[in-house]
């Protein structure tokens, strides 16, 4: 294909050639040879190239030719001052890239709406109470969080759900879903681990999701007599089910139970929470926890004191959340099995807008994301200041050139266009580079985010809107300051600029450098803030990671086995666990073999109340169902009594080990030998363990109850204490398990250290990003200061030459330049300190930082870092100034 301007060029060529040949034909008839005739024709015609050029000037495509000229000239100018160009491009790329990456992430986590029609109608149903609603809830599954003294929870009982659904009829459709869980699947001979979520039959009709293929689940799928059916996400179908519609109606084995694949969800539906890891949806009654015989859910379904269902509703058009709330509040209260003990312990419905999905992720990542957004905006401001500065210094250099062009007849418009083109060229190169930076940064964030969340954030690539937004700001800056010289030249007459000699002779007027100095000042001040933030949050992460866990964390290996899912049952299952304990225990390098229902340090877990028989007092505590080897394997010291024995564990004896803080909270005088009450049974306390962490690093350490592991469990976490680095025993462990059963996979294998850092992903991501912003700020400030100082010294070559001729030593000159640069930097630092202190104060009130962590030493470190950067930035220009040869400088001036 030809561009219009290319066609114009060939047309012009043909037209002129026609004329020349027609003339030549005539001359040939007069008796000239062809060559002579052509020569004569050219003479009659006039200068061919000159005329063509004049034609081009008249062409509609004239601007294309001129842009070509402008670009070529711009490119030459950029190459001539390549350090400035490189600095400007790098600044653009880093500034836009970082902003884009963060905005993309924020969009995915906070702002993107669910992929369903009219997402603004969706409402999450929660309840709040000040005190724990005693008597209403015995057991729960779900999540809760604190909001200004109120406990907010997302779980309801089966009859609570039914009552609410009834009461909301006409105002809203209320659907249920339950916590997701990992399952193993087998389809067409391929075995995978997937995430399954149970939902009510009206869940997809409520969301108004249309199937990509097959059908969605409906109320009929949870009627008595229905066979287990699933719908899968588009992603899972494409990756694991062969990406063909043939999969519809086929059977997929999930935890060894057959399910029919009913349909595939559309690609735009990625779940009900940002980064939803769910691959497979099934009716609640067919969810894997429901299918297992020992399942807690089965009992929960008929127990009004078990709260385990989460609710999502779609309001009918025109119904306000307040109307919905007042409609369901009485029904909710009427569904309770008993009256609340007090007004404080009375649950109240709370509605939460769910257009962007459930609030879980926003609650967890919202505050850090807003902080990161704030910081990245500062980075962008610094970057823009840098570009402004670099272009300003170039502008001063080019004033003479511009004046020359004007005096040779170049119009102001044409001059503006030249500078405009150059700025655009710069912006374009920086923009392209910024895409690379954004992608690298995004990759980094994916690795820092919890499973699925990162992939989700990038599922749509780096956000185009974010890229355009960040790009627009920076490009605007580039244009603004790129056009400045043209604007100046158009205003002032050419003569004085031309007369200013070579431009290196005079001293610069202070006024002209004032904007540049202010920009550097602002940069350094913001730099203090960013670098301080970087140090503070990195230090906070290290502190959290290093925090005492109460157990010996080196030399522990964790992995899961799920024998129940490949058909082990009853005695055979029990035998399997006994064999596992013996085989692994006999391995060289393995000191003890622990089995547990809950994986330590994963977050969440099994929580319930523990009390003293006959007393009303209850202590909320974390429960570890363990075998006899667990406590030594985890490395929790026993401070009194003993641990659980092999016989007790295997006989499921009613014995318990409790943590020191539980002893304190229950107020037991002599704990060993006393009795405690938990879940309908009394247990004899045989030992007291040192207080140790259960599942999270960033919360208070809870009381922990250790009781014997029931060997009927379908899955367990194996905890190995090793005498050698933990991963070195892995090969032998695999070998032993293969000998037990070659179809049994080991799942989620981590040394304890890695497991702990995984629980701190949010803090890790935050610290990493703050850290990189800090480094970025340091670099950008350095570049800004360097640009300013190298240009002021270059402009003052003549002045320095005179000083040296009058007796100034090289040392004098150098220290003068150093002094000027550092004075500027220190002024910036001085401005930055109160800024940083104020920000630290805000961070503390926002609970991003612990109380009383006023970062004086970090502030000092940040100042030291920036000072070092400033010295490095100023040293180059200072050295160059001191090596000026006075004779040459004067001669040139």
């Amino acid at each position, binding site marked *: 294909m030809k561009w219009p301007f290319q066609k114009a060029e060939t*047309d012009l060529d*043909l*037209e*002129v050639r*026609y*004329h020349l*040949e*027609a*003339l030549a*034909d005539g001359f040939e008839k007069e008796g000239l040879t062809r060559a002579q005739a052509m020569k004569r024709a050219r003479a*009659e*015609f*006039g*200068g*061919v190239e000159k*005329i063509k050029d*004049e*034609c081009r*000037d*008249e*062409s*509609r495509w004239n601007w294309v030719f001129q842009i070509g000229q402008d670009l070529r000239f711009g490119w030459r100018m950029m190459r001539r001052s390549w350090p400035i160009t490189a600095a400007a491009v790098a600044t653009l790329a880093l500034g836009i890239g970082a902003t884009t990456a963060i905005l993309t992430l924020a969009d995915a986590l906070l702002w993107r709406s669910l992929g369903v029609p009219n997402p603004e109608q969706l409402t999450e149903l929660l309840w709040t109470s000040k005190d724990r609603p005693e008597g209403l809830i015995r057991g729960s599954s779900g999540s809760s969080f604190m909001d200004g003294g109120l406990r907010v929870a997302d779980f309801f009982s089966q009859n609570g759900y039914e009552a609410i659904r009834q009461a909301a009829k006409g105002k809203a459709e209320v659907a249920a879903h339950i916590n997701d869980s990992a399952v193993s699947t087998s389809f067409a001979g391929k075995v995978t681990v997937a995430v399954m979520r149970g939902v009510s039959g009206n869940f997809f009709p409520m969301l108004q999701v249309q199937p990509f293929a097959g059908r969605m689940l409906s109320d009929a799928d949870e009627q008595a007599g229905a066979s287990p059916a699933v719908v899968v996400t588009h992603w899972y179908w494409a990756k694991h089910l062969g990406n063909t519609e043939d999969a519809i109606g086929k059977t997929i084995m999930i935890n060894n139970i057959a399910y029919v694949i009913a349909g595939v969800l559309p690609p735009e539906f990625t779940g009900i929470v940002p980064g939803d890891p769910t691959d497979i949806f099934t009716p609640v009654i067919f969810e894997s926890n429901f299918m297992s015989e020992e399942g807690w859910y089965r009992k929960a379904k008929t127990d009004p004191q078990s709260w385990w269902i989460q609710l999502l509703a779609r309001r009918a058009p025109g119904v306000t959340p307040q109307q919905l709330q007042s409609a369901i509040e009485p029904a909710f209260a009427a569904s309770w099995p008993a009256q609340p003990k007090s007004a404080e312990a009375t649950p109240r419905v709370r509605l939460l807008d769910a257009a962007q999905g459930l609030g879980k992720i926003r609650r967890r990542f919202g505050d850090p994301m807003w902080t990161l957004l704030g910081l990245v905006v500062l980075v962008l401001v610094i970057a823009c200041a840098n570009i402004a500065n670099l272009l300003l210094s170039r502008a001063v250099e080019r004033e003479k050139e511009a004046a020359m062009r004007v005096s040779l007849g170049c119009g102001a418009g044409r001059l503006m266009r030249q500078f405009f083109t150059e700025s655009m060229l710069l912006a374009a190169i920086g923009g392209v580079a910024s895409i690379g930076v954004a992608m690298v940064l995004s990759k980094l964030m994916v690795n820092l985010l919890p499973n699925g969340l990162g992939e989700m954030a990038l599922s749509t690539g780096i956000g185009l809107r974010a890229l355009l937004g960040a790009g627009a700001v920076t490009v605007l800056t580039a244009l603004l300051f790129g056009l400045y010289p043209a604007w100046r030249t158009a205003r002032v007459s050419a003569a004085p600029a031309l007369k200013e000699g070579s431009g290196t002779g005079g001293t610069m007027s202070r006024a002209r450098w004032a904007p540049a100095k202010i920009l550097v000042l602002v940069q350094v001040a913001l730099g203090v803030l960013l670098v301080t933030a970087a140090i503070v949050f990195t230090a906070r992460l290290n502190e959290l990671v290093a925090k005492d866990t109460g157990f010996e964390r080196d030399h522990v290996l964790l992995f899961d086995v799920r024998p129940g899912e490949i058909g082990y049952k009853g005695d055979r299952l029990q035998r399997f666990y006994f064999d596992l304990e013996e085989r692994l225990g006999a391995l060289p390098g393995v000191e003890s073999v622990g089995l547990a229902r809950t994986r330590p340090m994963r977050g969440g877990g099994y929580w319930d109340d523990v009390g003293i028989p006959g007393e009303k007092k209850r202590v909320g505590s974390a429960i570890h169902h363990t075998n006899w080897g667990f406590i030594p394997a985890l490395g929790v010291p026993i401070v009194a009594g003993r641990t659980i024995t092999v016989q007790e564990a295997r006989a499921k004896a009613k014995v318990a080990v409790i943590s020191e803080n539980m002893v304190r909270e229950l107020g037991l005088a002599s704990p060993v030998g006393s009795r405690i009450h938990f879940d309908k049974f009394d247990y004899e306390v045989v030992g007291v363990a040192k207080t140790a962490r259960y599942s999270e690093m960033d919360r208070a350490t809870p009381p922990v109850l250790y009781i014997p592991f029931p060997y009927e469990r379908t899955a367990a976490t194996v905890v190995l204490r090793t005498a050698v680095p933990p991963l070195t025993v892995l090969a032998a462990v695999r070998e032993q398990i293969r000998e037990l059963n070659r179809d049994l996979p080991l799942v989620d294998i981590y040394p304890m250290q890695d497991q702990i850092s995984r629980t701190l992903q949010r803090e890790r991501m935050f610290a990493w990003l703050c850290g990189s912003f800090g480094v970025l700020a340091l670099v950008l400030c350095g570049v800004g200061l360097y640009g300013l100082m190298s240009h002021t010294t270059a402009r003052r070559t003549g002045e320095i030459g005179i000083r040296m001729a009058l007796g100034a030593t090289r040392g004098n000159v150098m220290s003068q330049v150093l002094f000027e640069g550092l004075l500027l930097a220190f002024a910036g630092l001085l401005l930055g300190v109160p800024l940083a202190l104020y920000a630290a104060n805000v961070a503390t009130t926002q609970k991003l930082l612990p109380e009383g962590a006023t970062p004086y030493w970090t502030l000092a470190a940040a100042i030291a870092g920036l000072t070092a950067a400033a010295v490095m930035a100023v040293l180059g220009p200072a050295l160059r100034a001191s090596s000026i040869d006075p004779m040459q400088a004067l001669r040139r001036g």
Partner: protein
Amino acid sequence: MAKKSDLLQGTLDLLVLKTLAAEPMHGYGIAQRILLSSRQVLDVQQGSLYPALHRLERKGLVSSEWREGDNGRMAKVYSLRKAGRKQLEDEMEEWSRYIAAIQCVLEA
């Protein structure tokens, strides 16, 4: 050969429009016609016709299309548009007034 005269600034456009008023023509033809009708008095470099033609085309006074020329080659043929005809009338009127004014002064 008679002594040649320089072309007055700005009159080339007028000549081109006038020439095209008779019939559509390619650049070579226009050049020959102007030379012929001026009895070879006007000293116009033939090439300088083209910037004028392109200018008139950009202003929308003439249009162009490719047609087969006399020698079998493709030639770009220009024809006068409505706006061009109007422009021609205006400029001819202007020109007559100009000539008349000059005459008045010279004969006074």
